[in-house]
């Protein structure tokens, strides 16, 4: 039998990087165009603003990349963010130790995430329905807790997470970048990441290979919940306030970042680095529209169009549809 040509085998796990290059080029081109149209866009200060605005989306989108790669979806992230932040904020304001209050936020995030995971994996409720229900219920809980209330006035130690900087680089940006690096490692270098891809690619084959499918699925949604708590913490620290309606339609923004980043909506394949770029791209677009004075409602409209376009491109790449005949 013929030998395997060794040079074709390749040795690096860096495909995630190369898959992101195309998107990065698109972003640079857009960057230049926006900067020419409006010089205020192209400043370093504005660049850091864009990254800061993207930071919590980036963190949630890392979690969402795992969820979508496992062939799931989580629509409840915006509502969960509202619930954990209103509860955490109030506890801390009423005198709870900030560290303990933050811990409560993470526990709540993980708890509700694991409930999502339990419903999806053990009770076999489709992720879309499970998390749609949770989206409404958790928003309800947030409103029960804090309807009409505006929480503000966090202790300085927590404000630092949203407004501080280290060598002029905003803390949210540093945290989100570190989290992306962790995400890339978790996704590409660990059993957990591999199992998430395997389950999303072929659930039954994964089960027959001895993978604890249900356990991994519950972990995926639990991890998503933790990212909601972390992203929520940074968000409320940045604006030093929260309310029951915070994070409305956040899920669409997070899912869009993941899909734009090249993660397959059908599960099995994902790209955390792409997710990072997707989130920054969305933040860039929003920022450009704001600078250009475009109305918020139009921003929403454009966001929806971007999401649908990204899915069309995704489908095309997956060869589910074809504009031109694929040979």
């Amino acid at each position, binding site marked *: 039998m013929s030998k*395997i040509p060794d040079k*074709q085998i390749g040795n690096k796990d860096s495909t995630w990087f190369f898959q992101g290059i195309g998107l990065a080029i698109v972003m640079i081109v857009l960057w230049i165009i926006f900067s020419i149209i409006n010089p205020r866009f192209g400043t370093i200060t504005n660049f850091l603003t864009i990254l800061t605005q993207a930071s919590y989306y980036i963190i949630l989108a890392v979690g969402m990349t795992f969820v979508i790669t496992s062939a799931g979806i989580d629509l409840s992230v915006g509502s969960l963010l509202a619930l954990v932040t209103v509860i955490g904020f109030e506890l801390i304001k009423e005198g709870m130790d900030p560290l303990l209050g933050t811990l409560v936020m993470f526990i709540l995030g993980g708890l509700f995430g694991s409930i999502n995971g339990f419903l999806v994996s053990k009770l076999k409720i489709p992720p879309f329905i499970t998390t749609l229900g949770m989206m409404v219920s958790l928003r309800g809980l947030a409103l029960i807790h804090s309807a009409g209330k505006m929480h503000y006035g966090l202790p300085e130690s927590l404000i630092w997470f949203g407004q501080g900087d280290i060598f002029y680089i905003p803390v949210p940006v540093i945290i989100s970048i570190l989290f992306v690096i962790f995400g890339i490692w978790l996704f590409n270098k*660990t059993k957990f990441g591999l199992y998430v891809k395997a389950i999303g690619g*072929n659930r039954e*084959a994964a089960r027959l290979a*001895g993978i604890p499918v249900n356990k991994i699925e519950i972990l995926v949604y639990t991890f998503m919940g933790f990212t909601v708590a972390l992203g929520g913490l940074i968000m409320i620290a940045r604006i030093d306030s929260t309310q029951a309606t915070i994070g409305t339609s956040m899920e669409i923004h997070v899912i869009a970042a993941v899909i734009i980043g090249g993660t397959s909506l059908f599960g099995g*394949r994902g790209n955390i680095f792409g997710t990072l770029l997707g989130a920054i791209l969305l933040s860039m677009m929003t920022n450009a529209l704001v600078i250009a004075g475009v109305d918020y409602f139009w921003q929403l409209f454009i966001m929806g169009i971007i999401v649908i376009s990204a899915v069309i491109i995704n489908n095309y790449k997956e060869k589910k549809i074809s504009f031109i005949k694929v040979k």
Partner: protein
Amino acid sequence: MDSDFDPKILMKVKNLSKNYGGLKAVNDVSMDVYAGEILALVGDNGAGKSTLIKSLAGAIKPDNGEIDFNGKTIELLNPRDADNVGIGCLHQGLGLVDSLNVPENVFLGREIQKRFLGIIPQLDNEKMREKTINLLHQFGVSLPKLNDAVINLSGGQRQTIAISRLLLQNIKLVILDEPMAALGVEEGGHVLNLIKKMRSENISILLISHNLEHVFQLANRIAVMKNGKMIKIIKTSSTTKEEVVKLITFGKD
């Protein structure tokens, strides 16, 4: 009579049953698998072949019965248990995860890990890639690219990878459910060679196939099932296709 275990018997299945509701999918089946033989399992659709092998591979839990393997009574609660005693199973159409590459598929469920910074476990992709190459060499499988998602490979290549992944461990029995289905003649030929190669390595094979041509070409013995019951186990050399067809169709000769 079962007390003295014949050393040539690798697996002894005793009175195995599995019901789905009122349906007796596998009804009191007993059979032996000898060391180093190819035993073909034939029967019509719904005869209970898949349910039987799923029980033997730990994919489903039988309601009754006992399995002795290598002289010991074993209990298979999940696929990993089967893996641990040396039983590998290729389920029909469920061998691989399309979106993963070749080494990831080969090692799925039993990854090699190393320690990142000496403490945190992470995948040792280099070592798995290396071992995959060796394994494929050993069984004479040639492949263009290991880092591609296996969806880009041909049906025959995919099937050989799916079978190779069973051979990774110290395997004693390989169960193959329709390994040549949906393959072209040439590709089926590759799989056929791989099966012969496994037998020459003294691995027992339980082969499910609809293709009597293949069965007669490969099998030492043929087991015929009908309506969940084991009808007869016969030596290939002492039977004919006509007889086997009669057994499959009418449940008697």
